[in-house]
C-alpha cells in the first residue's frame, strides 16, 4: 500500500460528510450566485437605459433593485430557517 493509498483509505474511513451541512451550503451558495446575477442585471439595465432613454427605465431599474433586495431577503431567510 503506497502512502497515497493509505491517505485515501484514511479519508474514506474517517471523513464523514454531513448531508445537512452540504445541502445548507448548497442553498446558500445558490442564493449568493443569484445575488451576483442580480448585480449583473442591475448593471445591464443601466446600460440598456443609457442606450435608449425615456422608456420605463425608472420602473425597470426599480424592479432590478427589488430583485436584488429579494435575493438578500431570501438569503437571510435561508440562514434563519435552515
Amino acid at each position, binding site marked *: 500500500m503506497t502512502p497515497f493509498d493509505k491517505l485515501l483509505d484514511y479519508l474514506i474511513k474517517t471523513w464523514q460528510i454531513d448531508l445537512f451541512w452540504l445541502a445548507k451550503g448548497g*442553498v446558500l451558495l445558490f442564493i449568493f450566485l443569484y445575488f451576483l*446575477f442580480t448585480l449583473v*442585471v442591475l448593471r445591464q439595465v443601466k446600460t*440598456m437605459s443609457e*442606450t435608449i432613454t425615456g422608456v420605463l427605465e425608472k420602473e425597470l431599474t426599480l424592479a432590478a433593485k427589488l430583485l436584488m433586495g429579494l435575493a438578500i431577503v431570501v438569503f437571510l431567510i435561508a440562514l434563519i430557517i435552515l
Partner: protein
Amino acid sequence: MPNIFVAHSTDSTSSGQVKKKLSTKVRKREGSELPFASLQAAESSEPKQPKPGMGHEYVTVAERLVKQKNGSKLKMFNILPRKVKFETQEAKEVILVLLRQHWMTQISWIVTAGVMVLMPISLVWIPIISFMPSNFQVMAVMMWYLLTIAFVYEKFITWFYHVFIITDERVIDVDFYNLLYKEVSEAKIDNIEDVTYRQGGVARAMFNYGDVEMQTAGERQEFKIENVPEPHRVVKILNELKLEEEHEKIMGRVR
C-alpha cells in the same frame, strides 16, 4: 407664401419639435429668413400658394405621422414616441417610429413562465420533494420562484430593449441578445436601395407581423428587422422617407 412661417408653439412634445424643425427646414431651403415682420403679416393673410417644387399638398412623413401618433410605452408600433432618445441621436434628429418585436414571438417564454409559476402547485399531487425536511422544502420552492422571476425579468428586458428605431435620417437596430451582449447597427435612409418584407406562416398572417429587409449601399449590405408588427406599414414609411431624402437632395438641403 404658405403660412409655414407662422410661429409654431414651442411645447416640449415631439409633435411640437417636429413642427419647429419643419419650419426651420423650409427656411433653410428658401435660403433666407423672412425680412420684414409686416410682410409676414401681409402674406399670412393672403390665400395659400403652392411652394415652388413642393406641390400644393406636400406633407412630410413626420407631419403625416403626427396624425397617427400613439402614446403607450409598451406598444410594439410606437409612432413619434414622447421623450424617447437613443445614445447616438443627433441634435435635430426626430424619432418617427419605435418598433419592437411582435408579442406573438415571445409566446414561448410567456408559456414557459406560466408553467414555472404553476409547477410548485403540482407538488400537492406529485410530491417529488417530500423526502426533504419541511424547511428545505420551503427553501426549494422559494429558490424555484427566484429562478422564475429572474427568467421572466431577463426575457422581458431583452424583448423590451430590442428595438428598431426609424428616424428622419436613418434606421437603427438595437439588440441585446442576452444580458451580456449588445449590438447597435444602423443604416442611413440615403443608403437604402431596396426594401422588402416577408410575412409567411400562419402566426404571421394571423397576427400581422413579419421581417423587413433592406439592401443598403453601405458597408453592411443587408439590414434586417425581424418580427415587426405591420411590416407593410414599415415599408411604406421607409419608402416615403427615401422619397423625402431624394426630394431634399434636389432642393439642396444637406445635413
